[in-house]
């Protein structure tokens, strides 16, 4: 039983970061129907910026916001410089998705060019070797920090969307772009904000994942895929679904790693995705799309 809870704790900690990744994916998908395959790589770029700043002894409380903003600006630049012109030329959704795949490769190339292939160790104020014992349970500093960051991020996003005018404009834009425009909502700016916000969450996840993993230009690939799985599990257009999906993936991954075998740690989440898609294609929180004829 104790080991079970121990796995659960590390699962929740990893899952909260997958939730952040999933939120970024869902945010873009629900407002534009684009699956952003460059999401992980944008997060990697932001994390490397943080790495460089932290290696130059910049304090963490400065390095964190700078890297987040950098990631957000990069995504907004990408939106205005590539997605908007593509849309002006009537690119299909599939075409735009392919563009994000291309961008992912470009970013990977840039990462290799600027930071090289060597694995780095992220200087980080929290450590996973500092451990607290509460009764029979172990909590390490990093995973607690990670969990708090993941949950706080999700809650902040929830309030932004539910309680602010920007959030309402985002909802309106994602539901009916043409109608939102005729009401005077600047949909381009709103969408650019969504792209920026999504990348910001990605970088946040990346920065807290890097200390636990090895930092190299491809370190976000796995977390990205898991966040993606979480998003699908939750039902691609539900923000609550993204958080729940991400947490489930994190927990299942750790349980299967612990009880079945470590080799299965990465496989089981994907098996779950296949099962979900077979049984409930719209995901746990997704709304079934029914066209009225």
């Amino acid at each position, binding site marked *: 039983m104790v080991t079970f809870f121990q796995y659960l704790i590390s699962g929740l900690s990893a899952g909260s970061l997958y939730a952040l990744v999933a939120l970024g994916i869902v945010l873009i998908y629900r407002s534009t129907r684009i699956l952003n395959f460059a999401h992980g790589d944008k997060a990697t770029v932001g994390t490397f910026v943080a790495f460089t700043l932290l290696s130059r002894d910049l304090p963490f409380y400065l390095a964190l916001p700078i890297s987040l903003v950098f990631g957000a600006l990069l995504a907004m630049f990408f939106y205005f410089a590539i997605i908007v012109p593509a849309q002006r030329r009537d690119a299909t959704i599939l075409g735009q998705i392919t563009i994000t795949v291309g961008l992912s490769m470009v970013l990977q190339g840039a990462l290799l060019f600027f930071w090289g292939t060597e694995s780095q160790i992220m200087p980080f104020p929290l450590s996973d070797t500092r451990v607290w014992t509460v009764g029979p349970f172990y909590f390490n500093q990093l995973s607690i920090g990670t969990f708090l960051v993941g949950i706080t991020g999700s809650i902040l996003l929830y309030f932004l969307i539910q309680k602010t005018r920007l959030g309402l404009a985002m*909802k309106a834009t994602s*539901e009916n772009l*043409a*109608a939102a425009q*005729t*009401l*005077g*909502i600047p949909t381009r700016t709103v969408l650019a904000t969504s792209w920026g916000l999504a990348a910001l969450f990605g970088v946040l996840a990346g920065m807290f994942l890097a200390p636990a993993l090895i930092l190299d230009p491809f370190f976000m690939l796995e977390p990205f895929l898991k966040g993606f799985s979480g998003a699908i599990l939750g039902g691609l257009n539900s923000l609550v679904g993204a958080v729940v999906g991400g947490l489930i993936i994190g927990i299942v991954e750790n349980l299967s790693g612990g009880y079945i075998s470590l080799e299965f740690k990465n496989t089981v989440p994907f098996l779950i995705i296949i099962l979900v898609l077979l049984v409930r294609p719209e995901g746990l929180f997704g709304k079934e799309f029914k066209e009225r004829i």
Partner: protein
Amino acid sequence: MQLLTVDALTVRFGGISALSDVGFTMDDREILSIIGPNGAGKTTLFNCISGVYQPTRGEILFQGESLLGLSPDRIAVKGIGRTFQNIRLFNNMTVLDNLMLGRHIRFRRNPLQAYLRIRTEELRHREKVEEVIGFLDLQAYRKMRVMDCPYGVQKRVELGRAIVMEPKLLLLDEPVAGLTAEEKNRVAYLVTEIRGRFGLSILLIEHDLRIVSRLADRMVVLNFGQKLTEGTPAEVQKNPEVIRAYVGEEA
């Protein structure tokens, strides 16, 4: 000064001229109707005025300012509201939320001021929205999801959403299409009421000549992208070219 001036407006899609050299003016508080058979370019004209399409040539002036090159949201801020031929609402939101979204541009820009006055602001907007809800007789549907409302109600919600924006010019694209005879009369009555009560000008696309003749001060007739004629309903109905366009060649 004219409220709206459309001059030599031309729109080409590839080789097809959707509109060629269309021009007319509109006065303050006028109800002007655009009529014409299917494919005459009526909705294209609307899309140019509201910024969805950029015309190939020509000029559109609203209160003396050119609208060309502005995005639809900027045009909405300038005071032009519209409805669509095929209703475009936020289907997963309630009727009330749809109407509140119509107030978007009326919220204060300064975030600090908005924060300090948020209560009175919200109340002011709610008052306006409730007024329109009452006016359009939507009380029973306020908390219902738009998706679950009957078609006629959805049409009224869209109309209401455009009114709460407090535009100076309202573009209505076939407001009575698909409604029952009874509902048609009701909307026709509402359209004239809107002008009186909210003091705005209305540009209206409609197929139902009988209803339009009752509503409009003047009419502009389009056929194959060109202006056939304009005038009062009585003048237009007597025009032999209009009869030909609508009924076909006389036997």
